[in-house]
């Protein structure tokens, strides 16, 4: 098994466009193709499947996951805020300090 040193930024550069699993602190799992991400681990995923307790619950064409507990600059109209909080727009906000627990490349799951 070849082992090479790899920093987080190296990892992030090489996984764009690949199938990934993103796990949130809440335990919810998202699988899809990584569209883009930034240094705060905010993530955009395409063809997203949402798994809760290992069960497929939802599918989103596009999903945005917030990485860290930064103040959000996204401006929503008042009528959009409730649906965003309920996750209906494909937005998920973590309840704990950091929403994203890890980002994993997908080979297979146990």
């Amino acid at each position, binding site marked *: 098994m070849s082992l090479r040193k790899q920093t987080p930024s190296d990892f992030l550069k090489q996984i764009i466009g690949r199938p990934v699993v993103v796990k949130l602190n809440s335990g919810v799992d998202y699988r899809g193709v990584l569209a883009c991400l930034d240094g705060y681990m905010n993530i955009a995923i395409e063809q997203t499947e949402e798994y809760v307790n290992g069960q497929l619950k939802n599918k989103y064409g596009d999903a945005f996951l917030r990485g860290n507990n930064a103040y959000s600059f996204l401006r929503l109209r008042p009528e959009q805020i409730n649906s965003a909080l309920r996750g209906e727009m494909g937005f998920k906000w973590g309840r*704990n300090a950091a929403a994203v627990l890890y980002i*994993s*490349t997908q080979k*297979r*799951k146990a």
Partner: protein
Amino acid sequence: LDATPAELVDKCIGSRIHIVMKTDKEIVGTLLGFDDFVNMVLEDVTEFEITPEGRRITKLDQILLNGNNITMRNPGQKPHEYGSTSL
């Protein structure tokens, strides 16, 4: 004796390490690298949940672990020897 925590973590690159998260979860994997925020790139990862059943999820390949939720790590020890020790 190593001067900085970063040097200590750097010594573990290439080894199996065991990481305890804030949310009663433990991650074991081979450390490939880390950054200033102690986000970690790990390979051949097993994820353990601290529940009575001891549910386990295994991911091969590589993960980037968010450093925000790490409470403690030590090299090589099996999770069940120490149980839940989150700070």
